[in-house]
């Protein structure tokens, strides 16, 4: 078999791996949504390209020079969006580790595939219309071609940089601070009015592509070569780590949470909820990202006035309460899919588990409540809004999210990173959207009709009703789960380890 044939074979296997993922295969909505989102973002980029092209046309300098001076922002956006979608070669190649294919060859294949990925061309939806308006009329078609090739090479370089950082992040999460710091520093420099020392060199560099200057292409080729070689070395090292991956096998402190013993079986399920979050990388990360968002928005609202509009205050208050719920309850039962057979072999275990999840997720809201207290003290968020949203979350929004327990049937890995493309079902997406935006509309109507204090009373009453009846609606969800148990268990089994 020639190397090219081997390359095509691996490429075909990888394509099938994504296409035949159990959840993707069964979920027609996800297929539609995936294509819809691609078309949606492409349309936005097309629109921006045209609008920006016309907006900058006729300016004192060529339109594309204005864009080129700030091309770095495009690279920043491109870099961080890759985190949600792209796996590292080390993660992808370890399944071939024992096949008679040289690992170095496999790694080269994946790096080349990454460079030739269509994702690197996605910005063409923005650059082509922009170029047609802003480059071709000024510099001609040959400049447009060189300019586009130059940008493509920049995105290839950016993709390789992402891979490098992503691999480092697998060693230690804090490595993400390295690109973050660089991006913040460069963004700060680029935003200093009249003192942007980077603008001229950036414009000259990109203009080099448009004028087909050899030095511009040599620079980018050199940069790509360096980062490609660095990636190859790092990823090969990571491949061995991935194959022989062994997490820390001894717990430093196996806490027993004995305070929960007094609650009997419920206490045991509560302990399980806590340990689920403490001991599983994927779940822990999800939890801390949610917590980070709460802190970020609270700080922004406290120290700045950029979110001082009525809608944004309301949104942040609600968001602080519901974001953890949306993130963790949106995938309710998906982590339990890993040991669902064991749970199902015990009487009422799912009901008890649901109750424990409800109590745990309700108790955890003490954190956003604490973060909102300073905002109440300085008067940015009213006491009534805070209490209204807190009770509404526990008593109304949580019951909505818990409905997913009866329908979720895709097992999510506890400890390994999953690309977001493989997560989410129609039901999860719809409920998450409704939960994030419907309460805001209701609040507007309620406050408009009843005033800024009484407007929140319906929220408090509804929340209170939901809390006091939680046994009933949880039991109802449990019954519906049991009615769907065969379908759900089949889904959990099919998606386990896939």
């Amino acid at each position, binding site marked *: 078999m020639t190397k090219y044939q081997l390359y095509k074979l691996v490429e075909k296997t990888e394509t099938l791996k994504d296409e035949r993922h159990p959840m993707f295969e069964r979920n027609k909505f996800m297929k539609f949504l995936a294509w819809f989102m691609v078309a949606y973002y492409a349309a936005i980029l097309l629109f921006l390209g045209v609008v920006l092209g016309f907006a900058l046309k006729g300016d004192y300098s060529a339109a594309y020079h204005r864009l080129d001076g700030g091309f770095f922002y495009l690279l920043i956006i491109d870099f961080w969006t890759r985190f949600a979608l792209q796996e590292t070669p080390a993660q992808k190649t370890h399944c071939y580790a024992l096949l008679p294919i040289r690992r170095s060859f496999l790694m080269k294949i994946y790096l080349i595939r990454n460079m030739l990925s269509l994702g690197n061309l996605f910005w063409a939806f923005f650059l082509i219309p922009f170029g047609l308006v802003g480059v071709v009329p000024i510099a001609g078609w040959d400049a447009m071609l060189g300019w586009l090739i130059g940008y493509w090479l920049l995105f290839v370089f950016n993709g390789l940089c992402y891979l490098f950082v992503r691999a480092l992040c697998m060693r230690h999460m804090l490595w993400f601070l390295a690109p973050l710091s660089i991006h913040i520093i460069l963004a700060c420099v680029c935003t200093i009015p009249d003192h942007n020392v980077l603008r001229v060199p950036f414009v000259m560099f990109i203009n080099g592509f448009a004028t087909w200057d050899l030095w511009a292409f040599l620079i980018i080729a050199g940069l790509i070569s360096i980062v490609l070689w660095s990636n190859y070395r790092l990823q090969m090292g990571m491949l061995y780590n991935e194959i022989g991956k062994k997490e820390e096998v001894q717990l430093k402190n196996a806490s027993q949470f004995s305070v929960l013993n007094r609650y009997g079986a419920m206490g045991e399920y509560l302990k399980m909820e806590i340990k689920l979050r403490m*001991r599983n990388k994927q779940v822990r990360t999800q939890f801390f990202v949610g917590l980070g968002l709460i802190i970020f928005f609270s700080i922004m609202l406290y120290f700045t006035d950029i979110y001082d509009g009525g809608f944004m205050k309301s949104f942040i208050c609600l968001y602080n309460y519901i974001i953890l719920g949306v993130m963790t309850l949106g995938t309710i039962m998906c982590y339990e899919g890993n040991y669902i057979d064991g749970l199902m072999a015990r009487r009422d275990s799912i009901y008890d588990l649901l109750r424990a999840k409800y109590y745990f997720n309700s108790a955890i809201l003490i954190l956003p409540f604490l973060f909102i207290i300073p905002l109440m003290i300085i008067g940015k968020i009213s006491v009534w809004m805070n209490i209204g949203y807190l009770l509404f979350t526990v008593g109304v929004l949580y019951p909505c999210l818990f409905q997913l327990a009866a329908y979720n049937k895709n097992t999510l890995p506890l400890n390994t990173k999953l690309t977001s493309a493989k997560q989410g079902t129609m039901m999860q997406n719809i409920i998450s959207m409704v939960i994030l935006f419907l309460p805001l509309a209701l609040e507007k109507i309620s406050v408009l009709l009843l005033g800024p204090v009484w407007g929140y009373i319906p929220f408090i009453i509804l929340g209170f009703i939901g809390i006091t009846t939680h046994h009933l609606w949880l039991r109802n969800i449990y019954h519906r789960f049991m009615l769907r148990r065969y379908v759900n268990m089949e889904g959990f089994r099919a998606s386990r380890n896939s």
Partner: protein
Amino acid sequence: MNIIINNLKKTFGEKVAVDIERYEIHSGDILGLVGNNGAGKSTLFRLILDLIKADTGNVHMAGVVQGNPIDINVTETEDWKDWTGAFIDESFLIDYLTPDEYFHFIARISNMSDEVLDSEMKKYEHFMAGEVTGQTKLIRNLSAGNKQKVGIVAALLLHPQILILDEPFNFLDPSSQNIIKHLLTSYNQETGATILISSHNLTHTVDICPRIALLENGHIIRDIENTNGEAQAELENYFEVEA
């Protein structure tokens, strides 16, 4: 506790996984299920445990519980879970707990006190050979053999009247295989529990199972009495012919 299988059929596409017209496993039996890969052993266990849906038919459990005669269809109630212990594969284990935490979890959700649990665990100390309990290792970090031990002990922990173990000898070292054989036979003698095991190890199966069912393509093609080990020759003959 008797297990009665009636007209039980399960197919996966064209493949018939289980097709049993009627079969009864009597209270106190140790039944060994043998058959080649894909014969339907694990699927039958999953059907008995209501983990997959049968196309037709049902599984009943009948016997006496706390002095009351019962006869239940496993799909219609969860009562049977109180007297049934099972270990099929790793999907029965909560792998981010340590073995001790997992045993405590099972005991406490079943209202077993810590004292009773401790005395129960002593029975399995020899089997676990000091490598399972008293560790701060999570279950997912244990070797395959030790995970198997956790699953088997967890299934036995609550004194089930029906015990179902899929390939219990897998991954175990020779000493542990012999210990588990002894544990199962003595548990059966002491409690009169009905035990179902599947295995590819004919010797072990013949050693401990007075009754052996041979599965082929989902059908029980032979129901072999093995009170004196006479099944060995018949099984060897069958599998050699197949080879």
